[in-house]
């Protein structure tokens, strides 16, 4: 067990990540998030007036739009939108803004692997920047299992391509539980448990980064 523990902790290697909040003037909240060469911009509008057809009487309506780097959003983007939206819905306190709309727009600038986790991180930072009430924060971590059964966290596009299985988890900041999972490729239950454990460990790093970057920002402005 100790060996595995050691292997797990040693394999939690994340590429360098960076984030900038509030860099767009028009949206109510914005953030850019960079994982290595993967880069995403996020903008949040709201709470604002909602279309009658989309109105929900006891909570806000959240819309997530993902724009790919080139071309029009397709079926894959729609599936990613669903994942991001339902993760945000779980952490946002939407019932505080009934009958209003929230729009989150995610623009992919470059995809070099771990896109979905980058989208999730950008989404969380922009929601924070917009000052929307949330019950907890969340972060996205992608794990790949390569041909030898090694777990690679935050894989690049090349690593993703060679991998046997790819999993993305959204993890909440309160209990480090899994909010969302999206997987590709086949894997055993044991491998899944290991990946969850690794991701939970990686999430600590990300949450620490969230904390540092917000602290840095407010120490400048205040």
């Amino acid at each position, binding site marked *: 067990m100790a060996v595995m523990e050691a292997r797990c902790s040693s394999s939690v290697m994340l590429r360098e990540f960076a984030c900038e909040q509030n860099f767009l003037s028009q949206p109510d909240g914005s953030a850019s998030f960079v994982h290595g060469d993967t880069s995403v911009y996020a903008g949040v509008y709201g709470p604002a007036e909602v279309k009658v057809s989309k109105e929900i009487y006891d909570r806000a309506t959240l819309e997530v739009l993902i724009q790919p780097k080139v071309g*029009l959003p397709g079926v894959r983007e729609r599936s990613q939108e669903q994942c991001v939206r339902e993760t945000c819905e779980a952490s946002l306190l939407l019932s505080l803004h009934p009958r209003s709309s929230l729009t989150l727009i995610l623009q992919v600038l470059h995809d070099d692997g771990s896109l979905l986790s980058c989208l999730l991180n950008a989404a969380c930072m922009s929601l924070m920047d917009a000052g929307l009430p949330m019950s907890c924060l969340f972060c996205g971590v992608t794990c790949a299992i390569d041909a030898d059964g090694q777990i690679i966290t935050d894989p690049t596009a090349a690593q993703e391509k060679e991998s046997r299985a790819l999993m993305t988890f959204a993890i909440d900041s309160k209990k480090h539980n899994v909010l969302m999972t999206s997987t590709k490729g086949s894997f055993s239950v044991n491998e899944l448990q290991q990946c969850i454990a690794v991701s939970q460990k990686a999430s600590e790093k990300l949450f620490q980064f969230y904390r540092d970057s917000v602290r840095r920002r407010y120490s400048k402005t205040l």
Partner: protein
Amino acid sequence: MPTDTKRVRGPEASQSPSLFVSKPAAAPPSLGTRADGRRWGQVDVRPLFVRCGLVSQAKGSAYLEAGSTKLLCGVYGPKETERKDETDMKCGRLTTDMRFAPFSCPERGSWIQGSQDKDLSQMLHESLQPAVCLQKYPRSQIEVNVMVLENSGSVLAHAITCASLALADAGIEMYDLVLGCSIRQDGDSYVVDPSYTEQNSCSSVDSDNQGNLTVAFLPSLNQISGLQSDGEMTEETLTAGVRTCIEGCYKLYPVIQQALAKAVRRAAPPPSES
């Protein structure tokens, strides 16, 4: 061509394997008997299977099978009209939507509704509207959705029958049921309730009197609510064809009545004897 971004996309172009069949198709059967054993020039409709109430979410629904033609119809409403500007204070609105499943025809259809589907929806609407007491449903709309699961000819005629049965199953007030029947006129002879191949083939060289005819008929009022014909037919042939269709409709009538009675009995079982 704009690309469809809302579906999983395949290759740019693909062809049906039937285009590359090396052997010619079997010669059409001789005049007299049809491929499925029915006879030319006789009011020989395919045996019908109908069942009400298969779609649990709909107010009323009907499934119809005639030979291999398979249709499902669901009726929703009466409910508030979607387009507020078109709300009619005195009269309800009937909307019809008829679609073909992509696998329903010998050649794969596209998901995007073509002009054929829209034409058929329109004709279905025109045939059903006179039978529905729309003045009883002011400011509301009734939706009729027909899905063709397998197209083996005479789809419009069967869609009309199926839709009127679903409307009746939904408890929408109607003056009468609407039954549909179609024929294919081929020279001097005709086939009733044509199959897909019969509908699209023409055996006689003689170009007079070639055409398809579909009639929507209200049996107890003895009125025609819809008539659609294409091709070229003389006046006498056309009137004779309409008569044949009406005769065909009467053959369907008992089957539809029975299915409806069965659905009503299930919805409101007769009080027990004891």
